[in-house]
């Protein structure tokens, strides 16, 4: 079933409730999705796997609502993004934007630096605001287009561009300071 297109697999899941077809989709997208969540959580593998699992369960129950306006992968990333923010909100009683951003920051900085290139990336991303980080990760690591990033994060394309621009400036400064430039 591995060679079937996403559309064919989605049709099998929605029409026949095929678990096998859904399993193929999970195998196909587990790696980019878990990597994306690892980058949002500052490298917390266990938390990002739990969030990825929740994302796939939501995708299974909501697949009938998938309208093919974006790719399946973009749709999946959007669910993951919302699952991540639902988790952040669940940590705090207060739901203000500042509280949520502060919580994302503290979650991001909990993980230790092991001196690897991955740790350098985590450190570099740690200098960005949560929104800048999400845009930079999606644009450079997951190689998403601006429109797709806007779809995933629910931000207007102009806002995505601003976050990207500010994020790039901070990243460049970090890289030049640390001998990458």
């Amino acid at each position: 079933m591995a060679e079937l297109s996403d559309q064919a697999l989605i049709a099998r899941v929605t029409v026949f409730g095929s678990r096998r077809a859904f399993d193929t989709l999970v195998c196909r997208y587990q790696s980019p999705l878990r990597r994306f969540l690892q980058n949002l959580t500052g490298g917390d593998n266990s938390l990002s796997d739990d969030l990825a699992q929740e994302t796939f369960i939501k995708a299974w129950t909501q697949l009938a609502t998938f309208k093919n306006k974006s790719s399946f992968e973009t749709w999946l990333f959007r669910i993951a993004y919302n699952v991540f923010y639902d988790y952040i909100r669940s940590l705090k009683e207060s739901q203000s934007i500042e509280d949520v951003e502060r919580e994302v920051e503290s979650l991001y900085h909990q993980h230790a630096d092991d001196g690897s290139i991955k740790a350098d990336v985590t450190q570099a991303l740690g200098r960005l605001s949560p929104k800048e980080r999400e845009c930079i990760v999606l644009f450079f690591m997951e190689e998403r287009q601006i429109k797709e990033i806007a779809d995933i994060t629910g931000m207007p394309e102009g806002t995505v561009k601003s976050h990207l621009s500010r994020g790039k400036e901070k990243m460049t400064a970090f890289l030049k300071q640390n001998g990458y430039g």
Partner: protein
Amino acid sequence: MDDDKLIRQFMLSAREEISDSGFSARVMRHIPNERPFWVFPITVLFAVAALAVLFVWLDGWSVLCNIYVRAYTAITYAKHFTFNPLYLLVFLALGCWFLTERIKKLVY
């Protein structure tokens, strides 16, 4: 090197494919068992109803009888061959069962 290229190179150097290591199996174990999909039974119902209408409309019963009688006649008139019509029915039933199993395996 321009800034975009520098950042891209840096980010991609840390990008790695994450091996499944049982993750998909874990997800599939947590997928709800009850089928939230009502479309399949409804589709089957409509398909069966449409086929039944076509069968009656096109006089399917007499076509089927005709095919069966012709096959039976052809086989029994073959030289040195004794044939029990039950074999043909058993063969058809086995064929249907095999086909259904193949479809179920393909879909689920």
